[in-house]
């Protein structure tokens, strides 16, 4: 309960860590899952991402405004999100570069949390993809839990795996089963292969009002629909749609980037429309782009048009003070 010098004198609960702390907690759960399959290496990558992003935020804030940042947790959450999009065998400098780029370039100088034109984590991941595409998609082979941990040092000897997304890029069905794909036993990014856990995180984040369900569902529906209508696999439209959903970090990006309410539109129908558009851009990149996945590029592009809708065109969607269909 809070009080100001003007009404209202009670508040629902004020926190300098609103939203970020929830994202951070959800990310840490994924990191813990990743430990079960790959050992300490992905955990270290996640921590490096979070800490370097945090350090970058403190440094840039001191340089730009000579003050310590008001919400350091948000930077740690962005850094962790970038790290969760990396392969578990990525070199340690990668989350550092991605985290620093996310905060020091894409967030603080461009308006700060919620106001920068692009989602900082999407910007960090896109930057790494463009600069280090080779390392970005070099996933280790999938493994059973608690069996064969990745080495903390050199990973040159680690058996490489093929992610469902890269297989599909060549028009071939993934060898992994759907069950393996949702339980983290497919090659992929640190946080993106535990689909069931991501779904649980989504429930938590929705309950905490950190993400918009409408954005997540419209994005995922769009991916499935396009995969269904224009199947890349010969096994039929249904499996094709399903594999499009389960591959290429789509579910992770939906929950942690597309659904993030700080960067999504504030209008229901705009969110639905932009969710579908993000899916279309993402699928276009998968079909015609050079990389096996393009979800975070799609998020970046669509982020840029959200303010146009929310600032300039809001009055077209809702007119305050009049009765509304919601009633």
């Amino acid at each position: 309960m809070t009080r100001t010098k003007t009404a209202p004198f009670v508040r629902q609960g004020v926190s300098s860590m609103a939203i970020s702390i929830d994202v951070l907690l959800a990310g840490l759960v994924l990191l813990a899952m990743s430990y079960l399959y790959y050992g300490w290496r992905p955990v270290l990558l996640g921590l490096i991402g979070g800490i370097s992003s945090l350090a970058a935020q403190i440094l840039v804030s001191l340089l730009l405004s000579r003050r310590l940042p008001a919400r350091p947790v948000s930077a740690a959450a962005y850094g962790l999100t970038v790290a969760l999009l990396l392969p578990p065998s990525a070199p340690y400098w990668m989350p550092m570069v991605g985290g620093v780029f996310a905060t020091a370039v894409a967030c603080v100088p461009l308006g700060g949390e919620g106001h920068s034109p692009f989602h900082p984590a999407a910007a960090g991941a896109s930057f790494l993809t463009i600069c280090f595409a080779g390392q970005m998609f070099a996933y280790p082979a999938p493994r059973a839990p608690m069996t064969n941990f990745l080495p903390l040092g050199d990973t040159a000897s680690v058996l490489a795996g093929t992610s469902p997304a890269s297989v599909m890029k060549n028009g071939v069905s993934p060898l992994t089963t759907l069950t393996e794909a949702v339980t983290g036993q497919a090659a992929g990014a640190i946080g993106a292969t535990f689909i069931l856990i991501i779904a649980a995180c989504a429930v938590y984040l929705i309950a905490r009002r950190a993400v918009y369900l409408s954005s997540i569902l419209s994005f995922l529906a769009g991916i499935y629909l396009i995969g269904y209508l224009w199947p890349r696999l010969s096994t039929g439209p249904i499996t094709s749609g399903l594999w499009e959903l389960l591959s290429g970090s789509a579910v992770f990006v939906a929950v942690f980037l597309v659904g993030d309410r700080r960067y999504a539109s504030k209008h229901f129908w705009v969110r639905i429309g932009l969710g579908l558009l993000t899916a279309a851009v993402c699928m276009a990149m998968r079909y015609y782009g050079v990389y096996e996945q393009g979800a975070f590029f799609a998020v970046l592009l669509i982020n840029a048009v959200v303010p146009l809708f929310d600032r300039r065109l809001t009055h077209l969607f809702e007119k305050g003070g009049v009765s509304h269909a919601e009633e």
Partner: protein
Amino acid sequence: MTIISRRGIYLPSHKKETLRKPVESAGMPDRLAIPLFLYGETDNPCVPSVSEDSRVRKYETVGVFASGFQAISPADATVREIREIGGLPYLILEPDEEQQEPFPLPALDPKMVLENEIFERANRAAVTAGGRPLSEVLDTYKKRDVIQLWVDAICDETYSTASIELLRTRGEDLVSGLRLAARAIGAQAGGILISAFSSYGLPEEVDGLPVEKVLGKYPLRDRVREKLAMTQGELLDAGALLGLHEAVILGKGDVETLVTVNGNCVATPKNLWVACGTPVNYLFDVCGLTEEPTCFLLGDAMTGRLADREDPVALGTNTALAFVTDKIRKRACINCGRCIERCPQMLYPTEIARALDAKEYEQLLRQNAVACTGCGVCSYVCPVGIDLTVKTKRAVRQARRLLEEEELAKAQQMLPNAVPEEEPKPVLSAFGRDDLLDPVSYEPEQETLSFFTKSLPPPKKQTAQENKNTQKKPSSKKTDGKKPPAAGKSSPKGKPGGKKTKKGAKK
């Protein structure tokens, strides 16, 4: 039960602390401050009709407003002075130790009373509703062809239970007041509206009129008003209707109001009958304090205003709160959209605030900023504690100004030679307090946020003399030796033993 859902919020409730508890009288303080202005009127100055050191009887006229409305004395008293409190003019009265039985006006027969007699009596007895003379409110309703009137006993905020207690203890008188008001404007008496959350133990009907429960989110009253407007119905404040009943049927002046006294440092929260003009700190001396409050509020937590300890309770005030608070740093918006999602008026508060700061006034109109009701929901839900309501209220005024200018420009186009009539100068303007003219616009400058906690900054600065006065104040001369406890001390039984002239006792 009518269920009203839409945007808004469910507020935490502290009502049970005062609900269904005995209603008491606050007694008489040793000083009353009668406002020489009306909160809801911009152009209605009041000229005192009494001189310094003159004696006045209870219900005697002490001032006349430009509109003819009268200010009356809540007690037998001696006129002391005209003084500014918080920049506003007040007539200071010193009540007598022994209060005589007042001379009521002749009682009128509710079955025979004429419409204009009701209006006249409401004016003579100084009955107000929402800071305006009740007669003017009724006149507005009449002009708007309102066909049904309802008693507003919806306490939709956090602390106030005054209207519910009025219904519980004076239900029949409320209905009588409602019937008189309805008769005055040729409308029908609909019934009594209450929030379903506070309806436990209340009757289903009172004197043949239904007690309707409404269920919904805050601001429930605004929603109910919208719904009623669809069938040309309107709400009237329970306190005003009780005042009307007493004025017409009993010939009494409207000089007392039922106030819920509560807060996180109040020892015994209560509903008290309070004489108009009683200083706010006196109420907390009556209820006792567990520790020294750092702020007083007049009005409830969502829409009230900060008060100084000397600020007088006005008629229509139904909540007085005292809090111990802590200060925190202001944070920047994170664009989470909760304020937009919850705004009951479907507005876009962040964009309104941005447009106001950027002086993009056309954008304010595009965003329909005038529709903001100042309900405070946007500030309440903000996870980083931004005071959006301050900005949206300012935006409302700016947008209204723009609309007025547009209308004036249109009118001038049609009648190029017309000279605009000069507006009468509002009495509050003379005191430089235009911000208080419209309750929606009251917004002291704000730099910091505070939390309701126990570790607190020192209380508001007071001069040594003021402090002395404050401590002395409640120790009324008519306490028969029983002085109320000083502020800051716990006192479950703390109440002045002054002569009590409570409404409850009148029954």
